[in-house]
C-alpha cells in the first residue's frame, strides 16, 4: 500500500479516515477561532468591540499597540485630558483632579512621532480640554515607531499576542486579587529598583539631545493640533535627580529655550527649579537619573496635580 493510500484508511483504534480528519480539523479550527473571538468580544480589553464608556481598561506588555487601540474608543469616551510624555512619566498619575480626567499617553522609550501617532487616534472623537505636556529631550531625539507601532490593525482586538497579554493580566487580577501594574488611566508602576548610590556617576547626555527634525516637527504638529482644538496646554519638565541634572543643566536649559520657541504657548512648571531641590536631591525618590521610584511617584504626583490644577485655573 502506498503512503497516500495508508493515510486515507483508519489503521488503529484512534485512527480516522482522511475525510473525517479534514472535517474534524476544520470544525476544530473554526471552534477554536470562534471561542477565541467570543472571549475577545466578551472581555473587549481594547474597548473597540463594544461600548467603551464607563469602563476601566488596562494595558500589558505590548503597551504601544494597546494604547493605540485604546485611543480609538476608550480614551475619547472616558477622558477629557491627556498627559503626553515618555518613559519617565509612565508612572505619574494625575487623578483625581477636579473637572479633569487625565489619561497618561506616555510610552516606554517613546518619542514625539509615536506620541503624535497615538494621540491622533483619539482626537477625531475626543473632547479634550487640557493636556499636560512633558518637555524632555528624549521625545525629540528620535522618531522610531517601535514594537510594530507603524502597522497596528483593529483586527488585533480579535486575536493577537497583545490581546492575550491583557486578557491574562485582567484574569490574573480578578482571580488572585493582586492589582495589575497598569492602571485604567494609562499609567503603570515601574518595577522595584534600588535607588541610585552616592558613588554612581551620571554622564553628560549625548545622542542628539532632542535634535531630530522629524520628531520635533511631529511633536510641534501634535501640540498645534491640540491648541487648535482649544485644548489648554501646560508644560512640565521632569524633576531630574540632582547629581544627574547638574552635568546636563546647561544643555538642558538651552534645549528648553529652543523647543519652547517652536511649540504653542502655555505655562511651564519647571520641576528642576530651586524650590524642588530637596525632592530632586533625595535618592530614595529615584531609580536612576530621571525615573521616579514608587515613593517618589507618590510624592511627586501629589505636587504635580496641585501645580497643574493651579496652572489650568489660571489659563
Amino acid at each position: 500500500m502506498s503512503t497516500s493510500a495508508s493515510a486515507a484508511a483508519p489503521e488503529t483504534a484512534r485512527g480516522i479516515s482522511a475525510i473525517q480528519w479534514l472535517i474534524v480539523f476544520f470544525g476544530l479550527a473554526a471552534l477554536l477561532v470562534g471561542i477565541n473571538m467570543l472571549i475577545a468580544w466578551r472581555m473587549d480589553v481594547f474597548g473597540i468591540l463594544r461600548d467603551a464608556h464607563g469602563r476601566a481598561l488596562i494595558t500589558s506588555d505590548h503597551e504601544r499597540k494597546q494604547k493605540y487601540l485604546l485611543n480609538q474608543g476608550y480614551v475619547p469616551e472616558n477622558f477629557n485630558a491627556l498627559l503626553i510624555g515618555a518613559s519617565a512619566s509612565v508612572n505619574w498619575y494625575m487623578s483625581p483632579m477636579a473637572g479633569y480626567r487625565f489619561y497618561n499617553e506616555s510610552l516606554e522609550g517613546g518619542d514625539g512621532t509615536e506620541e503624535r501617532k497615538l494621540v491622533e487616534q483619539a482626537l477625531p472623537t475626543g473632547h479634550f480640554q487640557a493636556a499636560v505636556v512633558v518637555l524632555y529631550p528624549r521625545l525629540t531625539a528620535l522618531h522610531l515607531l517601535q514594537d510594530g507601532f507603524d502597522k497596528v490593525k483593529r483586527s488585533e482586538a480579535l486575536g493577537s499576542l497583545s490581546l492575550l497579554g491583557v486578557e491574562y493580566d485582567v484574569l490574573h487580577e480578578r482571580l488572585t486579587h493582586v492589582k495589575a501594574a497598569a492602571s485604567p488611566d494609562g499609567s503603570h508602576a515601574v518595577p522595584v529598583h534600588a535607588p541610585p548610590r552616592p558613588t554612581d556617576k551620571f554622564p553628560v547626555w549625548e545622542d542628539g539631545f532632542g535634535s531630530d527634525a522629524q520628531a520635533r516637527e511631529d511633536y510641534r504638529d501634535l501640540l498645534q493640533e491640540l491648541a487648535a482644538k482649544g485644548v489648554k496646554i501646560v508644560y512640565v519638565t521632569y524633576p531630574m535627580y540632582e547629581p544627574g541634572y547638574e552635568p546636563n543643566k546647561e544643555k538642558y536649559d538651552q534645549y528648553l529655550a529652543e523647543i519652547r520657541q517652536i511649540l504653542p504657548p502655555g505655562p511651564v512648571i519647571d520641576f528642576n527649579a530651586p524650590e524642588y531641590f530637596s525632592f530632586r536631591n533625595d535618592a530614595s525618590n529615584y531609580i536612576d537619573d530621571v525615573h521616579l521610584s514608587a515613593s517618589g511617584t507618590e510624592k511627586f504626583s501629589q505636587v504635580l496635580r496641585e501645580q497643574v490644577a493651579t496652572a489650568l485655573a489660571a489659563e
Partner: protein
Amino acid sequence: MLFASFPYILAFLPCAVIVCILLRQLAGPRAAQIWVLAASIFFYTRAGYFNLVYLALSILGNWLLARAINRAEEPAKKRMLVTALVLNTAYLCVFKYLGFLASLVPFLLPHGFAMPEIPFPLGISFFTVTQIMYLVDCYEGSLSHGSLLDHATFVSFFPYVISGPLGRAKRMRHQFGNFGSVDGARAGNLARGLFQFSMGLFKKAVIADSFARISTFGYNSAKNLSCAEAWFFGIAYVFQIYFDFSGYSDMAIGSARMLGIDIPANFDAPYKAKSIIEFWQRWHISLTSFITTYLFTPILLTIKSRRPFKRDLLFASAFATFLAMGIAGLWHGAAWTFVVWGFLHGLYLGINQYWRRKKMPKIPGLLSWAITFAAMTIAEVFFGASSVKQGAMQVASMFNPHHALMHDNISRMGVEGVSFKIFGVPLLIGAIAAFVGPSSEQLAREFRPTIWNCAYGAALLLVGFLFVNSNIPSPFIYFRF
C-alpha cells in the same frame, strides 16, 4: 504574497485547491493543471508585474533550448548545453551579481560610472537552478523537453517558485496528472498537506519570528558582546534561519500536497547532525543534491586528472568541495558574507572528509554533535551579518575570554521590547524541537489521520494565526535570494 499571511492562508490557497479539485471533476486533469498554472502566475505577479516578464522569458528560452538539445546530435548537442548553461548563468549574473562583479574591478570602469539598478526578479536563483537541472537532464536523455505547458507549470509552481525546495522536472512532471485528485487514497494527501502546512506556519510565525527578535537585536543593537552573548545571539540566528526556512519549506510542501503533488523534503532535523557531512545531508537537502551533482562532481572530474590533484584523490575531493561550497555561498547572494559562509562550510566538509578517509580517532557522540553545532553556528554568523567585518567581530567575541559571562546586552533586550514573557515559550519550544523528538518532516512522513494529530494541527494553526495577526512575522530570509 507571503505564505504566513491571511490573504494566502484564507483566500489564495483555499481558492487554488478548491477550484483545482472542482475543475478536475468537471473538466479533467489538464484543466486542473491550467488552473494551477494560472494561480501560480497570479501568485508570482503579486510581487510586481515586471517579475513575470523575466520569469516568462526564462521559461520560454529554456524550453526552446531544451527542445533544441533533445533534437540535436553530438557534438552539437553538447555545444548547445554549454551555451544554455552559459546563458542561464549570465541571466542570473545580470540581475544578481552585476553590481558585485563591478565592485571587484572598479579600476576597469570609467570614472564616475555607476551600475544601472536592475529590479531583482523574485526567486531568480531558484528558477534558474531548477532549469539548469532540467537542461542537463534533457541533455543526458533522462528527460524529454515536454510541452511548454508542462514546463511552465513545473517552473512557476507557486509553492516553490520563490524560495524552493528546488524541484527536478523528472520528479515533478509525471505527477501533473494528479492535480486536484482527492478521490480515494489521495484524500490523505489533503489531510497530510494541511497538517504539514500547520506545522510550517507554527515554525515560521511563532518560533522563527520569536528568535528573529533576539537575533535582530544582536546584530543591530548589541554592543561590545561578551563571549556568552556572542554565542547566545549567534545561536538565536541559527534557530531563526532553521525554523524560518524549514517552516517555509513545510508550508510549500504542504501547499503542494493539497494540490496532489509531492515535492522533495528539504530538511531532516539538521541540528541533530553529529558531523558536518551529516548536517548537509539534512539541511536544504534539495540544494545539497544540486551542489553534489552539478557543482562538486563536475569540478572533481575536471581537476582530478590534473596537477597538483593527480595523485591525491582526497585532496582533489576536498578542494572540489571547498570550491563548490564557495560557489553555493555566492549563489545565496552577491556579498562576501555568503562567500565566507560557503568557504567555511567547504573547509569544514574538507576536514570532515579527511578525518573519515584517514580513519582518525572517532569522536564521542555528544562531543561530535557539539563541535558540529558550534562550527555551523560560527559559519551562520557570517550568513546573517551585514558585512564580513560585523561577522568577524561577533566571531572574535565568541573566543574572547575577557568578561566572558557578561550579559548586559541580554538584559537590555527586555527593556527594548524583546520580552521573554511573550517570546519565552516559543523560544523554549523551538530549542527543544530542534534537538529532541521527531522533526516536522518526520511527523509529516509518518502521518496517519488520528484525532490527536487533528487537534494538534488545528491548535498549531490557531496559534500561528495569533502570531500572524500580531504583526510579528518578518519576511522569509530566503526571499532575498
